């Protein structure tokens, strides 16, 4: 790739007279040795998987594998349809779609990691709701995914995108930044504005810890995806309005690295701190792994128990 920072990305776009999405498509073709058409087709396939996940979570809602979550996407969509959501219809729909994809993920359904599975609802939520609102063709959204990918590529290589390494700011935070920048471009913003949107968004999630109850990608991950889609819309709107990230976006990414590196283990996806260790969080884990031996996995944590005979513990939770 000929860029490794967001300021270089914007500069390359300016030099080549390309959008971020177009630049990423060309660079990906170069990197992979495939044609732009082949590369585009793969991304278009991914967009198809995302749309299907949005639909599935709302049309065929299923509880998560643990049985702890599910049904919130439908709740929010039905509420939105009553027409009095504080957020307004469009943002509320983005939230419902993001929740939908995250719920599909928690039920071991098929999604696309954007950049991770824990944050897989944010980009589809922001993208698919915007597509319906503005009447965009699929191809336009696919180019938006290339833009989101370019932004994520910079974040991932300068900081991190996994909760285990950098906390939730690295997963949900990165996804919001990617969605915000891409949406800014899709709405007609310049690459510079898109880069500002990334910085604005990332600043809002700095310090967010990864504290999933029972280690599951459910509580609080699913609602954070819902919030994330709305925040992405907000950051894109700020950037399109001309708001700038005074601390340059590349410097904000360095702060994410600094903060994530300083985060204790218990706040980095181990389930040993934060919401996971609240009285309720601990009770949920006890109910899940204690009484119900088969829930969410198997009682085999101690020392090298035999894997044979584990078959009877399958089909747990809400898996169907």
């Amino acid at each position: 790739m000929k860029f490794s920072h967001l300021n270089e990305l914007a500069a390359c776009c300016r030099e080549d007279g390309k959008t971020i999405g177009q630049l990423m498509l060309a660079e990906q073709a170069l990197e992979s040795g495939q044609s732009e058409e082949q590369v585009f087709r793969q991304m278009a396939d991914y967009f198809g998987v995302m749309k299907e996940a949005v639909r599935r979570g709302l049309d065929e809602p299923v509880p998560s594998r643990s049985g702890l979550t599910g049904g919130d996407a439908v709740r929010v969509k039905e509420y939105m349809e009553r027409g009095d959501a504080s957020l307004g219809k469009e943002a509320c729909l983005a939230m419902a779609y993001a929740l939908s994809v995250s719920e599909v993920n928690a039920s071991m359904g098929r999604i696309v990691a954007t950049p991770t599975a824990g944050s897989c609802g944010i980009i589809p939520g922001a993208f698919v709701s915007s597509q319906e609102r503005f009447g965009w063709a699929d191809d336009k959204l696919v180019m938006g995914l290339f833009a989101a990918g370019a932004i994520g590529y910079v974040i991932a290589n300068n900081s991190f995108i996994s909760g285990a390494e950098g906390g939730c700011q690295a997963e949900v935070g990165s996804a919001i930044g990617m969605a915000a920048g891409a949406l800014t471009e899709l709405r007609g913003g310049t690459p510079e504005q898109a880069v500002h949107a990334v910085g604005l968004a990332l600043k809002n999630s700095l310090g967010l810890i990864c504290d999933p109850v029972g280690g599951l990608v459910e509580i609080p991950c699913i609602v954070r995806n819902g919030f994330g889609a709305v925040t992405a819309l907000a950051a894109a709107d700020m950037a399109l309005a001309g708001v700038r990230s005074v601390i340059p976006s590349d410097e904000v990414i360095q702060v994410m690295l600094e903060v994530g590196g300083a985060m204790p283990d218990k706040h980095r996806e181990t389930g040993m701190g934060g919401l996971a260790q609240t009285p309720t969080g601990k009770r949920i884990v006890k109910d899940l792994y204690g009484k119900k031996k088969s829930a969410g996995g198997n009682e085999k944590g101690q020392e090298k128990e035999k894997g044979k005979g584990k078959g009877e513990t399958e089909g747990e939770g809400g898996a169907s």
Partner: protein
Amino acid sequence: MRFKDVFSIIGPSMVGPSSSHTAGALRIGRTARRLFGTQPEAAEIVLYGSFAETYMGHGTDLALAAGLLDFETDDMRIRDALRLAELSGMNVTFGKGKGPFAHPNTVRLTLSGGGRQDAIVGASIGGGNIEMTDVNGFDVKFTVRTPTLFVFHGDRPGIVAEVTGLLGREGVNIGYMDVDRKSRRGDALTVIETDEAVSAALQDTIRGMKDVTRVGLVDLTAGGGA
């Protein structure tokens, strides 16, 4: 650069719930399976760090078993993988370990069968991407994003050049490589990540080279055969 391209950020298409604990874990399991060359009779799996703490909830156990069964990351059979592994006669055991590993999502797999054994260590670094760090005690790093060739050989002057020279003549470009040896003039392993596929015939030619003891290929790219 830890992340090489746009599809390491957008993608993979996968079955949830976690790209690092499910999709990445599957790819580590699959890498071990492909290196071993066939489905093992037994796989002993030791999990470290975040993997050890949360593997049940994330289905990491299912994903590792699915990888050993050679499934893709978006295969809907992943949720049944432990049962399917058992049905296919593969004995998979899990344990937790404490180790000085740099990455919180690290796993060690020891595969055995037919009198052979391979031990492999890797970490899932986010978004379904993996970083392997150890093969049978050789300290080698690789990511399996492109076809990855393993040449086990004796340590002698010129052997790496012979292998890479052959690849070059066959039009196979090297993106990354790593070499480690157990001792001076002892056993060595060269791992080569290539841009192009490495044909079975080419692998055979390398296998026939002087001092080469074993050749393996792990190709997890779309259409990369077992």
